Each structure stands twice: as C-alpha cells, then as structure tokens.
C-alpha cells in the first residue's frame, strides 16, 4: 500500500463547507441525481459522485469530486484535482452520552470497529439497506430463514465500512494526480480520521471525539509518535465535550488538534455542564451545585457545525472564535496565527489522575496557609488593642482628670466578649474554625493519597477504592 500522504490544496473552510453539506441529505440527493455541482463561497465546486448509507450501522457517506471549469461551465473531470469523502455525523445526544460514559474521559466508542454483526434481511434487499433485525439464532429466526425468503448479512461498524469505502477511492485513483482526503463533523469526523489514518489520506475533522484507541496497537504507537500529525487535523471548539473531552482535554486526536481558543478556559464550562447527570445527594450534591450549579440549566450549542463554533480568515484558515490571539495547536502547546501543522513536538500529558492529585495537593497547601491566618488571629487581635490603647493614650492630655486605666476601661466598655483574652471576637468560633480546617486538611490529604495511588494504576482503581474505603 502507498504510505505517502498527499496534502490537498483545499482550505479548512472548504472542508467545513463539505462537512456541512453531509447534513443536507435532500440537497445532496438532488445534486447527485441532477449531476449539478455544489459551489462554495471560495468559488470551488464539487459533484456528489457517490452516496453510501447503511441505516444499521449509521454510515452516511458522500464522495465529492472537485469540478473543473471548461469554457465557462463546470464539468466533472476524469482526473479531478481533489476527491473528498465526507462523513455525516450522528445523533448528537447519543454521542455525548457515549463520550460521558467513556471511562477516564477518553472516548473509546465501544468495541473493535471490525467486529462482525449478523443481520436478517429480505433475500432481494441490497446489503446496505435496513435489516429486519439483528440475527440472534432464535427458533423464530431459524423458521424465517428456512422459508427461503430471507438471508443473513454480516456487517462491521461504520468505522470499518467507511475505511473500506475510502480504500476503494484510493484504488480507483491510484496512479493519477488526484488527491484524496476525508472530512466530517462529530462522529463523522471520527470516521474521517479513522479512514484517513488507515488509508494514508489527509483528513480535516470538526468537533470529533478522540478515537485513537480504536486503532490497532501498532497504529496507536505511530499516532503517539506523531507520525500522522502533519496529515490529520482535528479542529475543536474547546467548549465542546464531544470534541475536547469532558474534563481535561483528550491526550490527542490522531493528528494535530487545533483548538479555536484557549482550551484551559473552557474546562470549567465543560465541567459545569457535565455535573448535572450525577444527581448526587446531600451536602456533597449541594456543594457541587453551589460551585458548578450555575450552568446546569444551560446547554449551549458548542457542538454544531456552524459559524458560532467555527470561523475562518480570508484565506480559509480556521481562526479563533473569541477574537483572541489565535488558535491553539495542542501538539506544540502554543498559539499560532493559523492552523498549520508544522509542529512535530509530541505532547506527553501527565495522567489525568496525577494532574488531579497535584491540584488537590496545591489546594491543601493553600488551606494550610489559611489555617495559619486563623491561628495567628489572637496575636493580631492583641496587637490591634495595643494600637488603639497607644493612639487613644496619646490623647489623654485632653482630659486632665483621666489616666491610662480609663483608656483600658473604655476599651472594655466596647468589648462584646471578655473571655480568654478575646475582647472583640468569639474565641469559641475562632477555635472551631481552626479545628474544622485541621480535620478538613487531614481528610483531604487522605483523599489525595488515594488519588495518587489510583493514578499509579488506573486499571486497578476499583480495587484501590475498595482498599481505601475498607469495603
């Protein structure tokens, strides 16, 4: 197989527009049937050359062939400059649920993409049409098959189906100058990256979840080594938990991840929207809601393929959506004026749990400092009284019949408390604050220790939890 990846001369905006098209099923069907090209804002035109759908697996693919102008008219050349395979995304709520339920934050999207599933279909039905049901080997299904009117069809996932479709396009244009690439949004973007990496064709995806783990071990290693960084671009609105991950950002997508603004600022907002499904009872729930509850009711559209989530400069390069200094190239951990993928540096993220432990430790240190301030208070209070005595003592000259003991009496007159040297504060409350901070810090140190152990072996986290809780 040819392992050289050609870089097409299309812009981010061209891919954005083609990805948007994949959601307009009627328009695409019409363009396909009438053989009319779709012209974008940059005056580039594409014919819909192929439409492939599989309602059982969710596959929705359009093959776009770049048109050429001949004598003022658009024509479909035999050897087009570009062929783009566009994958349609899927139900957004479902993909959000998949991302959220994925353990540890990195989307796994379940199983092996090549896993075969058997379906029952009418004998004359085309293989990509909707099956009657999944084959489960029951007596009823055996009877159906015996009737001779039905057949068993084996299908793999939409990832694998898309992969094969792209492989066919690569084969079709082998030996020509045509550059093949893939694009898509959301799950469609994940399809585009998956097929792109496997077939060594360029891909541009929008708000797609990380599917690094869907590849075989060897490809995963290559991805982590950055071998695909120059050829696969994931353009992500960091507010979006499908594209960015739900707490910390994904370690990486298959190639280069371009955030449309600083991802760190979006973390909190993603968490805000993530907390609601917990339904945690009691004080804990109240505490979480008090910190994160403000955004519960909000479900901003961070995911859609529209201009509020993605904007482009005059050259068609993706640009920052919040007017800040540029887009963020996660692979080189820096902002760049546009989303070029020249960075070869591989980002090695600390494990998510280690990061948590580090932040918690910093919070504990902060709490210790605050506790010291409370402990220091009686001293500060004594000094305050001394200062007042000193200032007012200097004014005794105005009162020829009074002496320093009258200043002391006047201070006591204004003191609401007279206990343990405390005059202007409740010593019991001060002690309780000190004590409660002491117990809180001790308990947080215990939690921090658990997180550190959990980070050491995430696979064993359930056992570690059991040990920690003495279950």
């Amino acid at each position: 197989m040819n392992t050289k990846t050609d870089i097409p001369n299309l812009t981010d905006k061209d891919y954005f527009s083609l990805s948007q098209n994949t959601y307009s099923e009627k328009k695409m069907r019409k363009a396909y049937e009438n053989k009319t090209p779709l012209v974008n804002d940059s005056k580039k035109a594409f014919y819909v050359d192929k439409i492939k759908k599989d309602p059982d697996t969710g596959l929705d693919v359009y093959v776009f062939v770049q048109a050429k102008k001949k004598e003022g008219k658009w024509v479909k050349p035999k050897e087009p400059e570009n062929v783009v395979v566009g994958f349609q995304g899927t139900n957004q709520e479902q993909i959000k649920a998949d991302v959220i339920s994925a353990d540890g934050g990195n989307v796994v999207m379940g199983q092996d993409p090549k896993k075969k599933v058997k379906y029952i279909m009418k004998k004359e039905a085309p293989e990509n049409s909707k099956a009657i049901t999944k084959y489960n080997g029951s007596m009823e299904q055996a009877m159906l098959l015996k009737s001779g009117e039905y057949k068993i069809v084996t299908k793999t996932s939409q990832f694998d189906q898309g992969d094969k479709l792209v492989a066919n396009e690569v084969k079709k244009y082998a030996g020509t100058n045509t550059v093949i690439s893939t694009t898509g949004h959301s799950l469609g973007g994940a399809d585009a990256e998956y097929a792109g990496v496997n077939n060594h064709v360029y891909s541009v995806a929008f708000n797609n979840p990380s599917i690094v783990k869907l590849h075989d071990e060897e490809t995963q290693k290559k991805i982590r080594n950055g071998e695909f960084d120059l050829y696969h671009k994931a353009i992500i609105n960091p507010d979006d938990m499908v594209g960015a991950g739900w707490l910390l950002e994904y370690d990486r997508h298959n190639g280069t991840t371009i955030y449309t603004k600083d991802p760190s600022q979006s973390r909190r907002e993603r968490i805000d929207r993530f907390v609601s499904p917990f339904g945690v009872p009691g004080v804990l729930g109240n505490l979480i809601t008090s910190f994160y509850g403000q955004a519960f009711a909000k479900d901003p559209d961070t995911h859609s393929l529209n201009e509020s989530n993605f904007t482009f400069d005059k050259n068609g390069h993706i640009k920052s959506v919040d007017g800040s200094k540029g887009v963020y190239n996660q692979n080189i951990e820096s902002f760049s004026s546009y989303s070029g993928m020249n960075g070869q540096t591989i980002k090695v993220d600390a494990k998510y749990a280690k990061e948590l432990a580090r932040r918690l430790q910093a919070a504990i240190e902060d709490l210790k400092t605050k506790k010291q301030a409370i402990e220091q208070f009686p001293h500060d209070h004594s000094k305050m009284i001394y200062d007042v005595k000193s200032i007012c003592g200097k004014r005794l000259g105005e009162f020829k019949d009074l002496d320093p003991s009258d200043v002391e009496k006047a201070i006591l007159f204004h003191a609401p408390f007279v206990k343990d040297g405390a005059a202007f504060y409740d010593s019991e409350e001060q002690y309780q604050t000190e004590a409660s901070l002491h117990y809180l810090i001790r308990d947080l140190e215990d939690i921090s220790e658990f997180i550190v152990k959990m980070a050491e072996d995430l696979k064993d986290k359930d056992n570690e939890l059991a040990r920690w809780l003495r279950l």
Partner: protein
Amino acid sequence: MDADEFYRRLQQNEELKKIVGSSLKTHCQNLKEDTKHASDFSSAQQVVAEVYVALLSSFEGKAKDALIQRLNENAKMLTNATENRSAFLRSIKTK
C-alpha cells in the same frame, strides 16, 4: 470627690469612650477585612469540588455509591469549615 468633679470625670470618660469607640470600630473593621482576606479558601474549595466531580465520574455502581458516602463526609467537613469561618468573621466586632 465633689459632685462637680464627679460629673466632670463622667463627662470626660464619656468623651474618651467615644474616641476609643471610634478608633476601635476602624481597627476592628480593618482586622476583620485582613482576616477575611487572609483566610479566604474559596479557590481551594473550587478545586475540591472539581475533585469530587472527577472522582465521582471515575466510578460506577456500588463503588460510586460508597464513594458518594465517603465524599459526603469530606463535603460536611468543608461545609463546617466554611460555616465556622463565616461565624468567626461575623463575631469580630465592637459592642
């Protein structure tokens, strides 16, 4: 001490109390503000709440239920510390 002297002293003491009261009020307020600022642990609270969310999302089923109980204990401690601090800060005052 005759009556005049008594009333004069009384008057001077009242005057002194006013001066002392005014000075105390300012100093107490400053001390309260400084202590409030020096003991503000809201950013640590934010991190702790984030830790709760992260831990809760890492477990499921019975493990998560047990974790909720355990984290509830910590949340109570955090709430106590917050409430105690507020009560303590409120107690810093003149009569």
